[in-house]
């Protein structure tokens, strides 16, 4: 290629002439395909007013999401059609093989009826929302301003198609075993359209389908709906399936997680790109998040509740939290969750009431009140008392960057409250302008149509809390009057107060409820005191604190904890010292043992310890020979040399015997052993490892096998060694299920036979060397496992050998003679 000094574009790669480097395959097939973006006078060569032109113009060029140029965006996975197809074909082959394997075992027929019903409720209807995801992804791809984005969106759509297809396939399979309705799409559609739990999600996706602005469609799908529901429909449903012994569905859903991760990755990249291009895009995306999240969360809640009703299900709350956390972690990755993180930090810090930070209450008698998590009530006589108290409470909050909400009721009016605040608080107007304080009438907060509406209150409260992160406040300080309460509303109000007590511990919230002494009878006063952490009474210009039992208990608890803490520190220190001693001793022992058992160390050890005396012997002997050849050998000298030689030989043999003794250290204990028990024990031991490597274990153990005589521990080690070899042979396998089959039976010669089959890479050309000591194909292997296993088995009077498995992998088998005098 011509070297250019003057920045002329190169003659080849005309599309990339301005880039001055060779483009990748990905770039070549994906770049600059949307000739119609921002084309003048209209995207397509038609009358500018035809619907298609106006559509694109409005929802693409005119989208709220803008950038100077989208052409520098790149899919982090650099998927091209070729790469995508190749990759997914392998995944599909894996799933097909998986299904075959399970079909071979009659998996569907063995499913519990309750679980099948759950699948009917939970899993089969997902084809509908997934279809909406697919359509939206295609819309985003169609409308995207740049082909790099389009391709990523289209591949995402293809991923959804894959998922839907598998749901349909499962439906059909289940229908064949259980009842034909399962495969009827109109039957499943009825569930989707009529079951109450699905409706919020249905509303969400149907609204998503008509979010025509391409940026908004992208945001709703990839930032809200997909992250939440992928987590639910993949990870959470897989876990539920595993708990119900449906490994097939679990493994299928596990595979889709990979697809989801890809979509997360390109979404994160695109958001970062958009924000880099125009920082205002961050605010825009957050706005869309705020608009669409509530609906999506509602849908999430209903569906998770449904999950909670399935057999073996976890607590819905725990699942909800998982999903919420996953969603927010994803938003953090996109850079859209930073402020939320800060708020979370505040919450974690002050987890309990009466926590470390104290904040001004604005009321002298309280002095420094612990903040977040405080819920107390105030009894007042006159309007002035109330005004006085509540005002200083708000004032203190404003000075501390908190958001204050004052809900005013009879006989105070909003105007009076506002006027009082204006007088007491400097810069009051600017606070109002910043939305740092709100003074609203009770009608707008507590009541709905004149009646107390608890739902409205909690929604309102949570809305304000959500504002905290966004607007950068440190928390919410709420105070409300209760004078609107009627007899009928009293109990619901108390319930609300109790509800607040339950959650306030973890929120950046302080609540002060004002009760008029005049309108509270003794029972009401007792209720109010009971439902708050503590109470204040203002009477005749003086304040009195009423400690409730709750408060007293809390204080006592703190004192007790402080005392205990000191005690515990002392105990723990001595514990730690003891443990570290024990640990050090164990470590030393372990090092010693491992040094003598690992192959490399053993060789080095032997080599070194034996070499020294050998060298000395050689030197001494050769020296004598030389001197002798020169007739220079003094008998004294010879005598001394021979003494040295003998001493060194003794030393060398001592080393050898020490090593021999060590190897023989643990004498074998021979007892009567049931080989099936041994196999089960080892499978339990290796359970986690097997699960981690996605190994399917099949057991074909013959019942009532005769006992064998042997060392249980040694036999366990042999079985473990063979199983782990099988697992390692299968780690490279990704396109077919990893099956480990354990067989035990009698063979023709009347011995007990154990065979371990794997579907791994097989024996290959090294089959002859398998049992040779120090032969290994593993990069860090010692090559001692099989030879040792063989010598153990032979020591028990049996044989150990290997042969290839029928289709893939290998079979390792060993025999053991039946114990004399034992019966089945």
């Amino acid at each position, binding site marked *: 290629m011509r070297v250019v000094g003057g920045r002329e574009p190169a003659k080849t790669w005309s599309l990339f002439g301005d880039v001055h480097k060779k483009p990748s395959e990905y770039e070549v097939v994906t770049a600059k395909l949307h000739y119609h973006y921002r084309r003048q006078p209209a995207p397509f060569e038609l009358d500018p007013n035809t619907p298609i032109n106006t559509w694109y113009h409005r929802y693409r060029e005119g989208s709220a999401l803008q950038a100077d140029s989208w052409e520098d965006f790149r899919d982090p996975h650099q998927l091209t059609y070729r790469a995508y197809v190749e990759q997914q074909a392998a995944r599909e082959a894996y799933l097909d093989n998986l299904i075959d394997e399970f079909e071979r075992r009659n998996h569907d027929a063995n499913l519990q009826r309750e679980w099948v019903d759950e699948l009917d409720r939970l899993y089969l209807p997902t084809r509908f929302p997934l279809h909406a995801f697919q359509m939206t992804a295609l819309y985003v791809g169609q409308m995207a301003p740049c082909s790099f984005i389009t391709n990523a969106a289209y591949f995402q759509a293809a991923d959804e198609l894959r998922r839907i297809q598998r749901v349909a396939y499962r439906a059909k399979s289940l229908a064949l075993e259980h009842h034909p309705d399962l495969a009827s799409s109109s039957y499943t559609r009825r569930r989707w359209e009529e079951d109450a739990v699905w409706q919020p999600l249905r509303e969400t996706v149907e609204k998503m389908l008509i979010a025509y602005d391409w940026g908004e469609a992208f945001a709703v799908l990839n930032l809200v709906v997909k992250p939440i529901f992928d987590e639910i429909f993949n990870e959470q449903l897989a876990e539920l399936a595993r708990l119900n012994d449906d490994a097939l569905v679990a493994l299928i859903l596990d595979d889709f997680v990979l697809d989801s991760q890809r979509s997360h990755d390109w979404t994160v990249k695109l958001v970062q790109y958009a924000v880099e291009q125009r920082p205002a895009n961050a605010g825009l995306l957050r706005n869309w998040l705020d608009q669409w999240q509530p609906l999506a969360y509602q849908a999430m809640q209903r569906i998770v509740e449904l999950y909670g009703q399935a057999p073996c299900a976890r607590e819905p709350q725990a699942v909800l939290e998982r999903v919420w956390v996953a969603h927010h972690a994803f938003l953090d990755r996109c850079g859209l969750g930073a402020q939320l993180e800060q708020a979370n930090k505040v919450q974690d810090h002050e987890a309990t009431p009466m926590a470390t930070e104290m904040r001004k209450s604005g009321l002298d008698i309280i002095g420094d009140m612990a903040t977040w998590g405080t819920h107390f009530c105030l009894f007042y006589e006159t309007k002035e008392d109330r005004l006085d108290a509540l005002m200083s409470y708000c004032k203190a909050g404003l000075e501390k960057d908190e958001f204050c909400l004052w809900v005013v009721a009879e006989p105070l009016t909003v105007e009076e409250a506002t006027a009082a605040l204006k007088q007491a608080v400097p810069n009051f107007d600017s606070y109002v302008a910043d939305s740092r304080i709100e003074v609203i009438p009770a009608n707008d907060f507590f009541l709905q149509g004149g009646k107390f509406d608890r739902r409205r209150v909690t929604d309102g409260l949570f809305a304000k809390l959500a504002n905290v992160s966004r607007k950068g406040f440190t928390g919410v300080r709420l105070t409300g009057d209760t004078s609107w309460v009627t007899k009928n509303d009293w109990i619901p109000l108390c319930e609300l107060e109790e509800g607040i007590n339950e959650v306030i511990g973890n929120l950046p919230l302080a609540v002060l409820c004002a009760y008029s002494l005049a309108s509270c009878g003794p029972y009401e006063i007792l209720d109010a005191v009971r439902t708050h952490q503590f109470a204040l009474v203002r009477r005749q210009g003086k304040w009195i604190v009423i400690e409730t039992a709750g408060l007293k208990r809390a204080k006592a608890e703190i004192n007790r904890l402080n005392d205990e803490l000191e005690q515990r520190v002392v105990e723990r220190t001595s514990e730690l010292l003891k443990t570290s001693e024990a640990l050090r001793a164990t470590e030393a022992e372990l090092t010693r043992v491992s040094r003598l058992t690992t192959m490399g160390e053993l060789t080095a050890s032997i080599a070194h310890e034996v070499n020294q005396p050998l060298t000395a012997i050689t030197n001494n002997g*050769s020296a004598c020979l030389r001197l002798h050849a020169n007739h220079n050998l003094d008998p004294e000298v010879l005598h001394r040399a021979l003494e040295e030689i003998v001493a060194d030989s003794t030393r060398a043999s001592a080393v050898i015997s020490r090593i021999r003794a060590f190897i023989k250290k643990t004498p074998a204990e021979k007892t009567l052993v049931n080989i099936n028990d041994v196999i089960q024990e080892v499978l339990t031991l290796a359970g986690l490892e097997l699960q981690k490597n996605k190994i399917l274990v099949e057991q074909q153990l013959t019942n009532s096998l005769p006992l064998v005589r042997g060392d249980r521990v040694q036999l366990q080690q042999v079985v473990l060694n063979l199983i782990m070899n099988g697992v390692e042979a299968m780690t490279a396998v990704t396109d077919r299920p990893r099956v480990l089959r354990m067989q035990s039976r009698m063979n023709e010669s009347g011995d007990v036979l154990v065979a371990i089959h794997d579907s791994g890479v097989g024996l290959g050309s090294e089959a002859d060397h398998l049992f040779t000591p120090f032969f290994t194909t593993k990069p860090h292997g010692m090559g001692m496992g099989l030879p040792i296993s063989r010598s153990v088995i032979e020591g028990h009077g049996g044989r150990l050998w290997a042969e290839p498995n029928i289709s893939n992998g290998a079979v390792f088998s060993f025999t053991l003679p039946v114990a004399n005098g034992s019966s089945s």
Partner: protein
Amino acid sequence: MTDTAVVFVVDDDASVRSSLKFLISTVGLHVETFDSAEAALQKLTPDAPACLVLDVRLRGLSGLDLQAELAARNCQVPIVFITGHGDIPMSVRAMKAGAVEFLTKPFRDQDLLDAVRVALERDRARRQQEKEITDLQQRFDSLTSREREVISMVVAGKLNKQIADQLGTAENTIKVHRSRAMDKMHAQSVADLVRMIEKLKSLSNVY
């Protein structure tokens, strides 16, 4: 080989040390033994030709570390490594750092003695070389600055006439300077002189 050559043996195993001393002394060499690298470092200032027979694995500073330390101190005693467990990287490292030989225990006695001999010869040759340089240096230092000027041009191939012209003196004066310089340098011919100057240049960065 009965000059004052010394072989220093360093090994942490007593029987190996004593047997090596025994073996090496059979060829008439003087041997001194040490049980650690640190001990050897303290005593290792040989005035006579010397070499080191060194085990790699020692308590404290290892044999390879000792090799590096000696190099850092500009001590060029040749080293013969012996070890109980050599691996290729270790031996390559030792050889690259200038060792004479790398033997694994147990070695043939002849191999060791040959290596020691080679090492001592190398040390002798080096000492000889150093002596020559020092001599040359001394001779060169005894030249006057005028003489040095003259021979630098002689060595560059200039004729006396040209040198006289350049320096602004008579040709005869140049001839005198030149012959005096050649005497002082003990050079028999111009070719000799050139060789000497080259040696000085490359080995002691005078010019």
